[in-house]
């Protein structure tokens, strides 16, 4: 019977338009549910299949766009490279083709630009993913690793271990910083929030978007100041530039180690987060509803928020605190495919990767030969988006 439903998708597609819309809560319901109501063909299955196809189409399109963006972004800048040169270099390094570029040009592709572009893609994907997960768990459309202070907490952790000269634990220290900042923000935003398995429905509701963002602002301010102090106190060279890079985020100087850290974090933490779509969906109506649907609310929230802190830490360790990526992209993707996380999470990650690849390409070429911290560009775009979201969600305040 359900197969029939899918087979008759074209037929069923018409139904939502032709079915008379019900006007209000007082409209008549069939008084008695009965098997006789069930028609063999149905709208739900066909519609879902349709949205499934649409999600797949978007994923394929964004995947192709990302691959193309990476190749094209590597060609942009001085040296006059072509996409074919980039391909040749990549294939040669993968041991598939013969090297055709001069060592210098090959070095530009493989040692300078490719790691930077790939790091941008991984960081963008991870930040957008973190934003989408945090927005679901806090039921707050303004949640984002930057706005809630995680990024600045991670910066403090990263800067501290760099100053202390123990670079190997850099991502872990950043994770520690992000976790401290997250706990501080949530504690500040709503005392007692998320306490206990299952939680109290009312206390979940007390964590308003406004309070959360204000708490994030306070935490960011303090951690940002600590980052600046540590750099200023310890730096030997151009401390102002270094402070700017950590506070605004920059992908200058990233190498294959950065790719390994950011990409590894995406694989180890990002993929499990993407796989938690079902759990995040269940949070749509709050903690009580999630618990009644069989979700272990306390454990899920701790694990998933811990995951976002871990991922944010690894990303900030290579890029500094790049803002607004986690805010903009999930909302843009929601606009396209709706709020179900099975579609939202992977598409947000892809869109975030594409977005940051181009934002960083702009940052390193717009004022060539000078380079902007990429966070300036993301904030230029993200600030207005934040304002629009705030105005649209006035009742959330």
């Amino acid at each position, binding site marked *: *019977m*359900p*197969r029939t*439903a899918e087979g008759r998708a074209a037929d069923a597609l018409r*139904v*939502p338009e032709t*079915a*008379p*819309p*019900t006007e*209000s*809560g*007082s*409209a*008549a*319901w*069939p*008084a*008695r*549910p*009965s098997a006789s*109501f*069930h*028609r063999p063909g*149905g*709208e*739900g*299955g066909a*519609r*879902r299949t349709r949205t*499934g196809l649409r999600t797949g189409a978007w994923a394929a399109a964004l995947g192709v766009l990302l691959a193309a963006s990476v190749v094209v972004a590597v060609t942009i800048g001085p040296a006059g490279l072509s996409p074919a040169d980039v391909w040749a270099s990549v294939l040669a390094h993968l041991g598939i083709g013969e090297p055709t570029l001069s060592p210098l040009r090959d070095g530009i592709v493989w040692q300078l630009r490719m790691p930077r572009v790939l790091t941008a893609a991984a960081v963008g994907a991870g930040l957008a993913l973190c934003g989408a997960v945090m927005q679901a768990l806090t039921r707050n*459309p303004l949640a984002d690793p930057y706005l809630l202070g995680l990024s600045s907490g991670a910066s403090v952790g990263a800067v501290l271990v760099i100053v202390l000269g123990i670079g190997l634990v850099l991502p872990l220290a950043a994770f520690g910083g992000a976790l401290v900042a997250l706990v501080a923000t949530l504690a500040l935003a709503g005392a007692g929030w998320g306490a206990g*398995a*299952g939680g*109290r*429905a009312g206390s979940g509701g007390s964590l308003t978007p406004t309070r959360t963002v204000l708490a994030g602002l306070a935490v960011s301010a303090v951690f940002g100041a600590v980052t600046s102090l540590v750099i200023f106190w310890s730096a030997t060279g151009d401390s102002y530039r270094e402070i700017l890079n950590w506070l605004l985020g920059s992908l200058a100087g990233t190498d294959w180690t950065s790719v390994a850290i950011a990409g590894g974090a995406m694989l180890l933490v990002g993929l499990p987060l993407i*796989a*938690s779509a*079902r759990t995040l*969906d*269940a949070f*749509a*109506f*709050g903690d*009580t*509803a999630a*618990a*009644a*649907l*069989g*979700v*272990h609310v306390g454990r899920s929230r701790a694990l998933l928020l811990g995951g976002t802190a871990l991922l944010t830490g690894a990303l900030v360790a290579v890029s500094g605190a790049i803002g607004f990526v986690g805010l903009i992209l999930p909302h843009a993707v*929601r606009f396209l495919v*709706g*709020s*179900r996380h*099975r579609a939202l999470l992977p598409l947000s990650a892809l869109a975030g990767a594409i977005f940051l690849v181009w934002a960083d390409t702009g940052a390193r070429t717009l004022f060539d030969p000078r380079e902007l911290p990429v966070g300036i560009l993301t904030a230029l775009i993200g600030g207005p988006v934040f304002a629009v979201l705030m105005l649209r969600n006035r009742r959330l305040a």
Partner: protein
Amino acid sequence: MTDPADHRELHADRVRFTRGRRLIIDDVDCTVPGGSVGALLGPNGAGKSTLLHLIAGVEHADAGAARLGDRDLAALRRRDRARLVALAEQEVQDAPGLRVAEVVALGRTPYLGAFAGPDDRDRLVVRRTLDDLGLVGLADRDYATLSGGERQRVNLARAIAQEPELLLLDEPTNHLDVHAQLTTLGLLRSLARDGLTVLAALHDLSLAAGYADHVVVLAEGRVRAAGAPGAVLTPALIREVWGVEATVLEHPATGRPLIAYSEVAERASVAPDRHGASARA
């Protein structure tokens, strides 16, 4: 346990729950026979919502047990419990960006694996539930654009899509006009006839008396009375629990009890501080 109705009988057995230092649910015993509609009554703050949350496993009792037939609900794995017990909440919250069909599909959560998508059966259940509740025309609407009554109906549909044996509802008639109230309660009755055990927290005593097979009156976290509506809802009990004077009539058409309130009681023996009665005395 050969009779399926016995298998679906709800028993709460000396359930006790404290929050902070406050005792919210105090040794509650209650029973709702399988395949019947139970109404959970009581003034604000009596612990109705909390008792529903305890039975649904949203919160955990300090002592006592809730059983469905011979199954201890607290001992079940969360997912297994969510396949037996569904909770439709009073709170009408926004679910940003979700469409009605997607909200109803959330009810399938306890049946889905972590990675597998919904299968044919899940789709069938969602479709059937939309159909049964007259929501087909709203299936593609954004939940946030619905009226309060429509949202209540969608929340109920989500719970029914869980295919539970026990359906718990927290004030399902809140914010509904008379027609929608009677339709909701009629639907609960027909679900019970099909074998579902229903327990609904209600405020309207006459509605409860008109539709419930069994009422449980809660006051200050304790069961004050339980049984058939006609036997339980007496003027003396209503005065004592709610602090109002009432006459219990017989409904001229249905023969069910009909409660006519007259005024706030001069002296309420239970919780006078909550009912303004002491202010008048």
